[in-house]
């Protein structure tokens, strides 16, 4: 049985009292998730028992640390349906996407080429491409979002047909962190492959916490994730690189650990692909903590996690649709006909008539409900729809329907305060 109330006991922070004495209702999971005790313990244990630099010291701790690193990498890669060779450790999603721009993009994009990202992307999947385009005098265009909050695939189809092999990179999010839209990855991949030789980069920051992901089956070339959004620690993430591309992707960070041989003039890079992309001392404790998070999620069963999220999303949509002051953002219009169900994941953002998102958040906070307000690092999307700022509630495994009820009740207070 999947019981969020039981799971809440695994997360010490959820029972830490707020200064108001109210119970914390944490609905800002899309920004970062809370950590279960097993993750905290795994990190502490590593530092208490195993800490030493990896691949360097020939001593017992060096051995333990190196083993922990490799084990953690294997666990994380397996969780995402990838091989350890395909996994490059990064600090977060942002670094992973920058890595694609710097390693692959720098080598393969030429003047006049076309890079495609989307209007709904997080800034971290827009700005690296803007910068790459500027460096290379390439063109950057963003796939528009339809009124319903979906990617405009007809636009994309016209674009790839017209531009063909001029398109070098297509980057898009698996799940939008503002609209909550779950994009049809396979369909987009088919479309792009049919008319271009572009590589495809997927931002999976918001899908990784909720969906069973199989990197190889998704068919994309690059996929970036952050541990901290999926119950793991901050400061570690991964970029997955398709096996067949690995040989062609050059490292972009240089130094210790990643080299073959170094002379005074130049260096060769490690043949071992795992080493080649690990410049400098990695965050072993972070990897160990993240692996513990993957195991925790696997034990819950990602299929059930996905189902749980779906129920929360639908429950929240229903509750919010009943409030006249609330306008939901993202795919919703046909939710009653079930067509849109399943096309959303992880969060629901909304506008509250006449009250700024920050003020909504502040009132909710006074009731112990933590939400996100602002533009959620999607300014082009907010501009496209003419929203100044939105309020977002987002979920994780420990979120219960009762939490949503508390949130909806607290929303009632917004009206009280601002109708004075």
């Amino acid at each position, binding site marked *: 049985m999947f019981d969020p109330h039981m799971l809440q006991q695994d997360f010490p922070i959820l029972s830490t009292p707020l*200064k108001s004495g109210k119970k914390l209702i944490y609905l800002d999971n899309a920004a970062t998730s809370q950590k279960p005790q097993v993750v905290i313990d795994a990190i502490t244990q590593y530092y208490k028992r195993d800490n030493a630099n990896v691949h360097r010291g020939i001593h017992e701790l060096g051995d333990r640390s190196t083993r922990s690193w490799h084990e953690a990498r294997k666990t994380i890669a397996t969780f995402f349906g990838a091989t350890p060779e395909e996994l490059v450790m990064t600090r977060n999603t942002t670094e992973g996407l920058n890595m694609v721009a710097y390693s692959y993009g720098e080598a393969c994009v030429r003047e006049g080429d076309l890079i495609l990202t989307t209007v709904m992307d997080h800034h971290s999947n827009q700005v690296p491409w803007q910068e790459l385009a500027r460096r290379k005098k390439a063109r950057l265009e963003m796939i528009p979002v339809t009124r319903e909050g979906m990617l405009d695939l007809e636009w994309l189809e016209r674009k790839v047909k017209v531009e063909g092999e001029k398109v070098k990179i297509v980057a898009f999010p698996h799940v939008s962190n503002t609209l909550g839209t779950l994009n049809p990855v396979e369909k987009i991949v088919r479309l792009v492959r049919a008319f271009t030789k572009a590589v495809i980069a997927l931002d999976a920051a918001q899908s990784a916490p909720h969906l069973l992901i199989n990197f190889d089956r998704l068919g994309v070339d690059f996929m970036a994730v952050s541990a901290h959004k999926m119950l793991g620690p901050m400061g570690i993430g991964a970029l997955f690189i398709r096996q067949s591309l690995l040989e062609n992707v050059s490292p972009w960070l240089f130094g210790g650990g990643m080299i073959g041989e170094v002379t005074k003039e130049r260096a060769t890079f490690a043949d071992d692909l795992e080493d080649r992309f690990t410049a400098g001392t990695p965050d072993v404790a972070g990897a160990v903590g993240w692996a513990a998070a993957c195991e925790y999620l696997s034990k819950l069963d990602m299929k059930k996690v996905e189902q749980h999220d779906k129920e929360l999303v639908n429950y929240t949509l229903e509750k919010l649709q009943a409030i006249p002051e609330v306008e939901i953002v993202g795919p919703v219009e046909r939710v009653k006909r079930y067509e849109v169900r399943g096309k959303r994941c992880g969060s629901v953002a909304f506008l509250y008539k006449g*009250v*700024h*998102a*920050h*003020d909504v958040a*502040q*009132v909710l*906070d*006074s009731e112990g409900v933590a939400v996100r*307000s*602002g*533009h959620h690092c999607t*300014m082009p999307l*907010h501009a496209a729809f003419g929203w*100044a*700022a939105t309020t977002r509630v987002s979920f994780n495994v420990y979120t219960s329907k009762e939490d949503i009820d508390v949130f909806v009740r607290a929303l009632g207070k917004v009206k009280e*305060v*601002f109708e*004075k």
Partner: protein
Amino acid sequence: MYSFMDKKILNNWLLRASFQDDKTGNMDDLYKEIILDHYHHPRNVGKLEGGHIVHVHLANAGCGDVFDVTYQVENGKIANIAWQGEGCAISTASMSLVSEWLKGKTLEEANGLDQKTILSLLGLDEIAPVREKCAFLPLQLW
């Protein structure tokens, strides 16, 4: 489990992140009469046209608040001021109150606008760090 020194270090860390720093984002303190009044009925809204008008664009990148301020200087004084844009209750009230405060001030006096002035206009002693950007947006004027 901890030695004396450890405890001291630990306590310091705990204090740093805790309620000791009681700059409240407390709602009842925050949404005072005056703030709600200026939010619902902002003063000096609009845009000045004509000669000798200074135009300043204020933006709070983190929140998406934007205000366009125009003011007219006559004999070294701010003779008139108007602003328009969109923001939360705090930034809107702050902008509205500051626009009233600025009217009639010499440029030198106007330059004295600081965090303390704004807080006292808002009727607050302090403001939570997360709302500072909202309250102090008008400081971008100079």
